[in-house]
């Protein structure tokens, strides 16, 4: 685990922005997989409700 307090401000900021970007990509891909699996049954249920 990286201790952010020991890093210089520009490196710390870069790590933080990189972490947010990485989380965004992981969530995009992760929810994309969920969408592929669950979207059709949900859409069908909405349309037929």
């Amino acid at each position: 685990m990286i201790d952010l307090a020991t890093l210089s401000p520009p490196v710390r900021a870069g790590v933080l922005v990189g972490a947010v970007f990485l989380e965004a990509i992981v969530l995009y891909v992760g929810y994309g997989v969920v969408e592929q699996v669950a979207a059709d049954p949900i859409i069908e249920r909405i349309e037929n409700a």
Partner: protein
Amino acid sequence: MELFGIALTVLALFVSFGFMVGVLFGFFGMGGSFLVTPALLVMGYPARVAVGSGMAFVFGTAVIATLKHHDLGQVDYKLGGLMIVGTSVGIEVGRIGVFYLEELGLASGVIGVTYVVLLGAIGLFVTYNALNNDGDDDSGGHHEAADQEIDPDAIPDIAKKIQSYRVPPMITIAGGIQVSLWMILGVAFVTGLLSGFLGVGGGFIRMPAMFYLIGVPVPVAVGTDLFEIVFSGGIGSFLYGMEGGVDLSIVAPLLAGSALGARIGSAATSIVDEGDIKIYFGLMLLGGSVAVAFRQAGDYLAIDVLSTISFALIMLSALLVSGAVIYSTITAMREQSTAAATSAD
């Protein structure tokens, strides 16, 4: 009970709030900073952390929403690149203006009044146009991708007038529209100027400006606006991160909720009628304008309850509008399904 050093109730609140903001962000290409930052301030976070974490959240959500709009072919990268250039210059000039007003001791009052007037005026204008169906083809949904030609009737009159001024060089943008490069840079500069002056992301100014002043179809205006926010939000997060203003324990759960919301909001732009989008957008801006007016009055008169009312108004308008987006999407899907079944018969 705690998870990653955060109480579970706070974690659930962040994820739910993130979801709501994500829907609005994916649908309108705006609503991040003006919803999240006041909420964090009311929760007791220092201004630096509220603004910095809000900006990092907007950056992450913009990345997700832009990827989704990219999949739908709703990002005009050429227009986005040009807008980034004009906006960056505008933001810098806006910041200089703020420092000058600070020296005069007028910054807070002038910025507050400008914010309320601008939000209210754009909100009224957008709602009025939506109610009068200006430039709306009422086709019940819209699927314009960045490379598709658009119906000339779908272009607002004001955009047609602006596009009639042909100052070379002319640039071809989304929908095969020809616009002067200077017009694009001018619109980007003015929206950047206001964004830098008000200290906000500027989506609420840029998105309608792209639609009304340049004539970009709404879904492409949203997608291109989000693409631009990836850059402005990334740079802002970096600057605040250097000062210790980005708290990942706030950003991570907010992003977990908004990632799902942004997917739904972005996908909804291809299902819900364009006129409905504009009405929601206008109403949300009007709600925001009233909320900011309450907060300004609360600060000026030192009445805490007015700030609380402002926060409640922001939450309520976000909840109502994100709920309306989801409700309209479900209704439109059912109508399309019924229409398809009827025509099949």
